[in-house]
C-alpha cells in the first residue's frame, strides 16, 4: 500500500509504503517499508487538501495557494495560483464565534467539476472556479463569488440526474450559518442561492436551538410518484456541532425531516463519511432512501463513531487505539477507511470489518491522506510470510511428526 500523507507540523508531504499488518508503534511488528518526506514548506504552508489526478496532484495549502504538482522521482511544482484566502472576511465573526482562537481562513473544499474545472470553497465564503489546462499544466482562476460566511463545510452534489450536463449544485453551512443550496451555471456565469434550510422549532423551554452544521452528504433525489417536479428535489444528511444528525428533503419543506441528538452531552461532531458498499466519488450516497447505510462521524476528543440512520451506535473505529482528535477520515476504494489526526498516526482500516490494517507514525499531526497504490501486501513481505509457514508436504515427515506427538505427552499442570 502506498500512501501520501500531509502533516501539519513542518508542512510536510510524506510518502509511506507499507503492507497490511504494519504497526510502527510495536517494535516487533511489521514496519513501514518506506516513510520519507517528499516536500516540506513549514507549518504555515501545510497542505490542507490533496486531490489526486492520477500522475499529478492538486494541493490546497494553508497559505492560500492551490498548486499543481507532479512527483514520480522528484517533487516538481508545475503551476500555482495564490491569494485564494482572505482572513479579513472572518474578522467580524470572531466576536460571535464560540472559537477562543482568532478565526483564520482555510480551504474547506476542493472538488472536481466537468472538463478539468475545480470548485474551491474557503471558510470565509469565497467560491473559486479553477481551470486546469492539461496541455500546458497551468491553473487559471475563472471566477470568484462570495457567499455568506463563516463556512465549516461545502459539498458538491454528484448523484442527481443533471450532473452530466446541467448546472452544478452544492451545499454549505457553518457556525450560525444555516445550510444553503447554491446553483452555479454550467458555463460559470452565475451563482445563485436556490434553497435555505430553516431552523428547527424552539425547544421545550421555548429557547432557540443553536445552528452549527459541520458536514453534509447528498442522497439521491426522491424517486417516488408524488414528487412535485416543479420544485427542487434534493436530499441530504447533515451532522451538527451540537451533536445532531439531520435529514433534509427539499420536497418536504425547509425544516429537517429527522433531527436526532446523538449524545446527551452535546459532543461536537466534526466529520461525516458514509460507510456503504458504494458511494459516489465525492462521498455522496447512491440511494434516495434514508435507510440501510451507516454514517461515520468524529468528535473533538478521539472517537470515530459508526452510526446507523436511526442514531444507533454500531461501532467505534479503532476503539482505544486512537489517542487524539481525528482531523481526517475518509472512505476510499477498495474498501479502506483512512484516518489521521492529532495523535500523529496514519491508520488504514478495513471498511467492512473495521479491522485495523496499517498504523504508521507520521511524525506530525495529519491533515489529509491519499492512497496512491491500494495493493494490500507487497511481494517481498508475501514471500517472507510464505517462507515462515513451511507446508508439510512429505508423507514421511507427517508420520514422524505424528509419532513425536504420540510420545511423552506432557502432563497438564495441576
Amino acid at each position, binding site marked *: 500500500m502506498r500512501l501520501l500523507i500531509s*502533516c*501539519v*507540523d*513542518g*508542512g*510536510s508531504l510524506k510518502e509511506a509504503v507499507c503492507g497490511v499488518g504494519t504497526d*510502527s*508503534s*510495536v*517494535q516487533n511488528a511489521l514496519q513501514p517499508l518506506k516513510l520519507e518526506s517528499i516536500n*516540506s514548506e*513549514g*507549518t504555515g504552508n501545510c497542505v490542507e487538501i490533496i486531490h489526486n489526478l492520477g500522475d499529478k496532484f492538486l494541493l490546497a495549502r494553508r497559505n492560500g495557494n492551490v498548486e499543481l504538482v507532479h512527483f514520480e522521482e522528484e517533487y516538481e511544482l508545475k503551476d500555482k495560483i495564490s491569494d485564494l484566502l482572505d482572513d479579513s472576511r472572518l474578522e467580524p465573526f470572531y466576536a460571535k464565534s464560540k*472559537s*477562543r*482562537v*482568532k478565526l483564520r481562513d482555510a480551504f474547506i473544499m476542493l472538488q472536481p467539476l466537468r472538463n478539468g474545472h475545480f470548485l474551491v470553497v474557503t471558510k470565509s465564503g469565497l467560491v473559486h472556479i479553477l481551470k486546469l489546462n492539461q496541455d500546458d499544466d497551468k491553473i487559471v482562476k475563472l471566477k470568484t463569488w462570495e457567499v455568506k460566511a463563516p463556512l465549516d463545510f461545502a459539498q458538491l452534489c454528484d448523484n442527481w440526474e443533471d450532473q452530466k450536463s446541467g448546472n452544478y449544485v452544492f451545499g454549505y453551512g457553518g457556525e450560525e450559518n444555516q445550510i444553503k443550496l447554491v446553483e452555479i451555471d454550467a458555463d460559470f456565469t452565475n451563482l445563485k442561492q436556490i434553497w435555505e434550510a430553516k431552523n428547527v422549532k424552539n425547544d421545550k423551554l421555548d429557547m432557540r436551538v443553536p445552528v452549527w452544521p459541520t458536514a453534509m452528504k447528498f442522497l439521491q433525489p426522491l424517486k417516488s410518484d408524488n414528487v412535485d417536479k416543479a420544485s427542487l428535489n434534493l436530499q441530504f444528511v447533515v451532522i451538527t456541532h451540537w451533536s445532531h444528525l439531520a435529514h433534509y428533503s427539499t420536497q418536504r419543506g425547509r425544516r429537517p425531516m429527522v433531527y436526532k441528538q446523538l449524545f446527551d452531552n452535546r459532543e461536537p461532531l466534526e466529520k461525516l463519511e458514509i460507510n456503504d458498499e458504494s458511494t459516489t466519488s465525492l462521498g455522496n450516497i447512491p440511494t434516495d432512501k434514508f435507510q440501510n447505510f451507516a454514517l461515520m462521524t468524529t468528535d*473533538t*476528543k*478521539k472517537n470515530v463513531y459508526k452510526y446507523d440512520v436511526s442514531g444507533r451506535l454500531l461501532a467505534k473505529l479503532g476503539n*482505544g487505539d486512537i*489517542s*487524539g*482528535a481525528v*482531523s481526517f477520515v475518509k472512505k476510499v476504494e477498495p474498501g479502506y477507511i483512512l484516518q489521521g489526526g*492529532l*495523535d*500523529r498516526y496514519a491508520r488504514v482500516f478495513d471498511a467492512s470489518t473495521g479491522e485495523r490494517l496499517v498504523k504508521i*507514525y507520521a*511524525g*506530525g*499531526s495529519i491533515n489529509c491522506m491519499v492512497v496512491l497504490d491500494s495493493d494490500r501486501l507487497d511481494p517481498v513481505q508475501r514471500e517472507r510470510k510464505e517462507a515462515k509457514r513451511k507446508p508439510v508436504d512429505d508423507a514421511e515427515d507427517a508420520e514422524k511428526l505424528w509419532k513425536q506427538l504420540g510420545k511423552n505427552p506432557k502432563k497438564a499442570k495441576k
Partner: protein
Amino acid sequence: MAAEELKIKNKMLRQQIIADLKDQKNKERHKMRAQRAKEEREDPTAKEKRLAENVPKTIEGMRVYDETIGQKDEADEEDLMQLFNNNGEPPKILLTTSINAKRNAYEFANVLIEIFPNVTFVKRKFGLTMKDIVEASSKRNFTDIIIINEDKKKVTGLTFMHLPEGPSFYFKVSSYVDVKKIVGHGRPTSHIPELILNNFSTRLGKTVGTLFQSIFPKNPDFEGRQVITLHNQRDYIFFRRHRYVFENEKKVGLQELGPQFTLKLRRLQRGIKEETEWEYRPEMDKEKKKFYL
C-alpha cells in the same frame, strides 16, 4: 532456612535462632561488601564492570517501546517552537484561579507568584468567559495564562494556556509540601532561576518540557544560584527548587527552597482548550510499563 523448617515448637527459641541466622547473614554481606569496596578502590575498572553487568531491572528500564523516543524531526522542532512566539521578549504570565476560588487557591497563587517570573495575578471574576480573558490578555501582550483549579477547597490542578493560539495543558497537582514544612529550607530571592528538565523523552514529553522552558526566561541570573527542577519519573513530574552552594572547589551543596509538588499531565489540547491532542484515561494505568512522557 525458614522458621517452619526448624520444627522447633518453642516459639521464642525459634525466633531467636532465626534472628541469629539473619544476623550472621548480614554480617557476611557487610564483610563481603567491605572486601569488595577495598578491591574496587584499588581497581576502579572492576567497579565499572560490576555496575555495567548488574543493571537492576526497574519498571522504567522495562518500559514499553515508544517509537517517538530518540527520534529527531525538523517538523517537531517547528511545532515546539510555536511556544516561543513572543519575538524574543521574556514570557509574561497571567495567573488566575478557577471561578469562586477559596483560600487555598489564593495561598497557592502566592506561592506561584514567587516561582514564576514576570507574573501578574488577577482575581477571577464572575461573568467573564475564557474567551474574554484570552482576548484581554492577548491585547496586553501576555504570553501565557495559568489557572489554578480548585475543587472542594483543595487545589487539584493547574491549567497552562499559551497565547494567542494555544496549546493548552491541564495537570493534576498532588503531594504539595509547603515551604515551612521543609526542614532546613532557604529563602528564595527574586533572581531568575535556572531550569533543569529531566527525562522528558517522548514526543508528548518534549511538548510538556518545552512548555516549562517557554514560561521561564532564557537568561537566568546565575548569581542567584537558584535552580528549578522538573523531574519526570513514570509520568509524574516532580517540582523542586534548590539553591546550590559552593562549599569548596570540589564540593557543591544543595539547599532546598521549596515548595514541593507533583504534576501529572491529564490533557493536552490544541488551541485554547479545543481539540484534544492527548488525554489521560484510567485504562492507561493498567499497563504499568507504558509511559507517555
